[in-house]
């Protein structure tokens, strides 16, 4: 009963937030609504007993990703209204509705739900975080390591793409060249 109330409440909130995200003309409102939606989704995770996932959602998604977007918004100066040429509303809404209906049809078909077999069954008694730890470092070790490398690559890519003076490399240049470079820059500034 408690679960039902929580589910419907958060469901309504999430849908509302995301609806605002896609339809508002103000970029700031969209960002804020998105961040709120993320938090509500983590609530779902907690309801479902995926504690670790919920926490990760708050920390990574709401904390890191939305912070990134906020910084990005500052950069692009999108605090004013966004003027957008409207596409054909009917096509968009129609297509989405159709897709939604079809997906629901597929996933709720008894044929699928009757034939599902659990690959890595949960162990009762231990908490969720222990379970995740057990599975993550044994069966999912390689994806874990690869994800780590991927994050590293993404970080480097982000720095290179967005940083200033990224075309010269201080570590590869001699002392004289660095001095000459600084002289050149000083002249520009003054």
């Amino acid at each position: 009963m408690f679960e039902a109330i929580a589910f419907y409440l958060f469901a309504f909130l999430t849908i509302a937030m995301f609806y605002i995200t896609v339809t508002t003309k103000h970029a700031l409102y969209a960002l804020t609504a998105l961040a709120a939606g993320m938090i509500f989704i983590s609530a779902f995770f907690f309801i479902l007993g995926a504690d670790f996932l919920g926490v990760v959602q708050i920390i990574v998604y709401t904390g890191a990703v939305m912070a990134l977007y906020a910084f990005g918004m500052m950069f692009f100066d999108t605090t004013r209204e966004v003027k957008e040429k409207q596409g054909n509303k009917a096509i968009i809404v129609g297509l989405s509705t159709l897709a939604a209906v079809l997906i629901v049809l597929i996933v709720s078909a008894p044929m699928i739900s009757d034939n599902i077999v659990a690959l890595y069954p949960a162990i009762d008694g231990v908490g969720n975080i222990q379970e995740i730890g057990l599975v993550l470092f044994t069966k999912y070790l390689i994806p874990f390591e690869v994800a780590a490398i991927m994050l590293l690559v993404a970080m480097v890519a982000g720095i290179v793409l967005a940083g200033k003076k990224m075309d010269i490399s201080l570590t590869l240049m001699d002392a004289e060249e660095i001095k000459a470079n600084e002289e050149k820059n000083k002249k520009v500034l003054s």
Partner: protein
Amino acid sequence: MMEIGLNHYLVLSTILFAIGLVGVMKRKNLLLLFFATEILLNAVNIAFAAISHYYGDLTGQMFAFFVIAIAASEVAVGLGLLIVWYKRHGNIDLDAMTSMKG
């Protein structure tokens, strides 16, 4: 109605996914398009976690975990590219980006 089953979660996930699709198709500002992409990913995460819960299988949660990791790195790289484009062209309007015209 009172008993929340897997289907409820799946329907919720589908609705969120459809909202995300609307956003993807509608938005002409690239940054706002990225927001809609985030919605898509989150909808899928809910579905994964729900299935994992109702079948007692941890695979779903692991998948959701990795989806979050990938989404984070995707945002980083995507924003970087967006910054480079903005520096070149001064705006991030989709209708102005037609250099791939066939």
